């Protein structure tokens, strides 16, 4: 890791040898393919960008309504809408490259191990993809997605297959809707995962008390936002204890304090999700606030605090 830049405080973090200017990454599915946010601020200030979840073939996703509001949270049933990996590579990434010079996190979903491998390999060929985030935790599709993330063996088999086919670091994005997150994270690590990302959305439901009807078309769907942060912090803490590879913390992060909390729990970097949807400037605000908070709390180097709650 080059140590030539002198900054005070130092926000840099590292993911499998890839140095990020700061730990703030917009989470997959809340930032599109990034370029639309370039209208609002220079997105090169971001640590990186986690791209919209991509599958082998194009997907329309689930019927409307796809969105329900919760107290301090949102339920979504998008259902992996995306134009398919070829169109992502041909159309979306070139648009992103016009406004963004850094590497991105490719988010890969699938319905079979072959799907995962196919799509991951296509991203693996691209120079401006930093890591492959393998999403085995989408609650909004049948016959795939979260099913792979609910048992250690299934998670490990996806991980091993992708790992065997690709050169870039493979990070497994896990579902929180499990009894034992540690055993799943360990199985992924044993299968060669270079990192763990958690948490994907909780499975939640809203019913309209006025009509008695489920609000989103699929009934149960993915629940995220500040409401879920305590679950995310707990799982990051538990998994940090159990694995040696880096953990990326996701779940309800909205402020610089939230970033610090997640990093104290064990996150080497963080992804910011739902916050982007209610404030397009959310990541920018966090990145600007982080050094001020670090100074206030006497943190010189952000990477020093990773997992420190385990030793406090």
């Amino acid at each position, binding site marked *: 890791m080059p140590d030539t830049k002198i900054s005070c405080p130092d926000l840099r973090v590292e993911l499998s040898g890839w140095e990020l200017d700061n730990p703030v990454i917009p989470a997959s*599915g809340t930032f599109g393919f990034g370029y639309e*946010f370039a209208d609002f601020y220079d997105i090169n200030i971001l640590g990186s960008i986690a791209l919209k979840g991509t599958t082998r073939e194009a997907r329309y996703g689930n019927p409307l309504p796809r969105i329900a509001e919760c107290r301090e949270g949102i339920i979504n049933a998008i259902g992996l809408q995306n134009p398919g990996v070829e169109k992502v590579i041909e159309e979306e990434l070139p648009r992103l490259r016009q406004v963004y010079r850094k590497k991105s996190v490719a988010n890969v979903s699938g319905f079979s191990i072959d799907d995962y491998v196919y799509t991951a390999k296509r991203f693996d060929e691209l120079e401006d993809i930093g890591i492959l985030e393998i999403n085995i935790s989408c609650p909004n599709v049948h016959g795939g997605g979260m099913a792979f993330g609910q048992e250690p063996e299934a998670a490990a088999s996806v991980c091993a297959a992708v790992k065997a086919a690709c050169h870039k670091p493979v990070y497994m994005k896990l579902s929180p809707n499990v009894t034992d997150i540690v055993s799943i994270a360990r199985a992924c690590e044993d299968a060669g995962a270079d990192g763990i990302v958690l948490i994907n959305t909780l499975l939640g439901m809203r019913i309209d008390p006025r009509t008695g009807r489920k609000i989103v078309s699929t009934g149960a769907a993915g629940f995220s936002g500040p409401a879920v942060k305590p679950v995310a912090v707990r799982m990051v803490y538990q998994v940090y204890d159990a694995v040696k590879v880096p953990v990326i913390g996701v779940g309800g992060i909205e402020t610089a304090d939230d970033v610090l909390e997640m990093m104290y729990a064990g996150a080497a970097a963080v992804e910011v999700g739902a916050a982007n949807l209610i404030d397009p400037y959310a990541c920018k605000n966090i990145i600007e606030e982080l050094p001020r908070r670090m100074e206030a709390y006497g943190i010189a180097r952000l990477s020093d605090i990773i997992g420190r709650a385990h030793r406090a």
Partner: protein
Amino acid sequence: MYKKGIYEISENVCIADKVYRMRLDGFTGDITAPGQFINIQLPGFYLRRPISVCDWDEKGVTIIYKVVGDGTELMSGLEKSTKLDVLTGLGNGFDVGALKSGQTAAVIGGGVGVPPLYALTRKLLDRGVSVKAVLGFNEESQIFYDREFSELGAETIVTTVDGSRGIKGFVTDALKDMSFDHYYCCGPMPMLKAVHGLCTDLGIEGELSFEARMGCGFGACMGCSMETRNGTRRICKDGPVFRSEEVSFDA
């Protein structure tokens, strides 16, 4: 492009049954077309509330909204000089350039689909386009802005489902014998479908504004995607206004 800013309520009054008009003072330079919407953050609610722009000038924006849930209930109780965090200039809006001076536009609204047509009507009349406004409501107590449309200079026809005022029936009952060159429509889904069907039969093209439960309101989350003849489109970002040729009600 949209912007986020702080706006101050200078008016918030009931103008019909459960229907309120709110005036928000603040920067409006990002509003570029009638039919766009704004997205309002309300204290105690996680998601913003998307509300169509009724009208705007250099000092502020006027919206008209109906109380349909806890969020709009809270909105209706907000007092003057309350400050709100608002995103403005969202969505594409109507194409006022679709018609030339001397041509005639049918402007068709249903319930709280009426408001965005107000600024549209003003802009069209400014360009020398004749406007026939067809405003549909369920019943008399819900009628609003019929006089305002007349005062702008539009030929204004009201329909009510129960016949308590104007033509008894739906907007299509008023529309079917009318002559116009292009139409603009905003209202509930069954109305959009009926108007689209009628006008297609009449061989007249137009523009339709859709609504949906939204996540972000600016194209990031894919929460309000819709299939069109040109593929999947986001109502919040690629819409809310779509040309009648693109729209498909088959799905």
